[in-house]
């Protein structure tokens, strides 16, 4: 009984997880749960932060093998830091997503990690990209991933609107994550959110006892 990770089997510590990123008017919100588990039986950590900063205004959230994800994001962070110094300007969100994609695609035999990259850059403003397990790169207005995401496709499809305000978007993201965490046994803990705009990247935490409650809670 290994946790199902988008249909594949993961060894070792994995982030049975729920992650998402949503574009709104003027920024993006990227969010995740905080549970890390082995085999769906034992919770290794209740407070993992799955939102990794790869540059000033660019964050990634990770799904799959935690070890693989950490190795890849570390490499991406280095490459982006080097690039931004050489080019004397912050990297494009597209460039960050591309770097992750190259790492995932070129090493697909060894790796089992997927990412959502979201951020803000001067050229195109707020953006969201998905890099899947095998190295596919796709840009979307919002995206959800991880084992818990399967339970909330209906919710996000029904409730997403383009050009939301920051508050509307926060509520949307929090609700989506809470619903997934409520049904997926390998997602849970607290909600981590990062709100990225031109001015700053703000980390918001919604503790377990402050999660939105629904009809049966």
């Amino acid at each position: 009984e290994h946790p199902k990770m988008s249909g594949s089997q993961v060894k070792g510590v994995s982030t049975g997880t729920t992650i998402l990123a949503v574009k709104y008017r003027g920024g993006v919100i990227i969010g995740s749960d905080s549970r890390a588990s082995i085999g769906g039986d034992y919770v290794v950590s209740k407070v993992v932060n799955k939102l990794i900063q790869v540059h000033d205004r660019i964050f990634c959230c990770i799904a799959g093998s935690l070890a693989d994800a950490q190795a890849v994001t570390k490499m991406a962070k280095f490459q982006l830091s080097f690039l931004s110094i050489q080019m004397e300007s912050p990297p494009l969100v597209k460039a960050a997503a591309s770097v992750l994609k190259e790492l995932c695609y070129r090493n697909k035999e060894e790796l089992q990690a997927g990412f959502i990259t979201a951020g803000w850059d001067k050229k195109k403003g707020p953006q969201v990209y998905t890099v899947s397990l095998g190295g596919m790169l796709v840009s979307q207005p919002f995206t959800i991933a991880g084992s818990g995401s399967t339970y909330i496709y209906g919710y996000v499809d029904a409730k997403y609107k383009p050009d939301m305000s920051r508050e509307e978007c926060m509520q949307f993201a929090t609700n989506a994550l809470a619903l997934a965490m409520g049904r997926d046994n390998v997602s849970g803990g607290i909600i981590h959110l990062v709100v990225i705009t031109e001015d700053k990247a703000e980390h918001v935490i919604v503790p377990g006892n402050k999660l939105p409650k629904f009809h049966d809670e």
Partner: protein
Amino acid sequence: LSAYDLSASTFSPDGRVFQVEYAMKAVENSSTAIGIRCKDGIVFGVEKLVLSKLYEEGSNKRIFNIDRHVGMAVAGLLADARSLAEVAREEASNFRSNYGHDIPLKHLSDRVAMYVHAYTLYSAVRPFGCSFILGSYDEDDGPQLYMVDPSGISYGYWGCAIGKAKQAAKTEIEKLQVTTHNVLKSLIISLSPFSPFRIYIVHDEVKDKAFELELSWVGEVTKGRHELVPKDIKEEAEKYAKESLEEEEDSDDDNE
């Protein structure tokens, strides 16, 4: 000169690397190439000296496409320039492969300049005997123009000339306020030092016989793609150039 000029790995007592200076001589002896950065694009012009009537028209091009949005005009040893164009193409292509977007021109010119510089460090190789001008246009950064010389330095320019008539060309370019012109206007009015017009001024009728003019542009008018200037526009520009040249000569005559 002395024992200090035999290899690129030797400094002279006064701190010069003669091999690099000799490489620059190769550029100075070549026919002229110019680049102009206007308000909405870049124009390149190259004076291509035709050594034999038997050559097919358009052979030995001196303007290269490096990427969709980047062009390169060269002066100096053409074979050296060709291999550098290939280096630039690989850099631009690898960048797009890794980062998913067009390479910014400053970054490309820094990378190629680093490559050129590497060949000035060792006695086992010789420096590249060519300078080149890179130009690009995109909606966000606008028009950009950079020049790289055999020593491996790159410079950003508003207007730039390399080759035998570079001084005369630069003087002509300085006379124009290029930053206020758009690309079409530049082509038709001034393409200066180099433009179809002026090139007739800087072209030495006695020493150099026949020449072909290679013209290319990239800007808003080409939607960011680097292309050779279409034949009809080129001919119109040449006609205008010749006419304005004659007018100048006439007014010069009047002044005498």
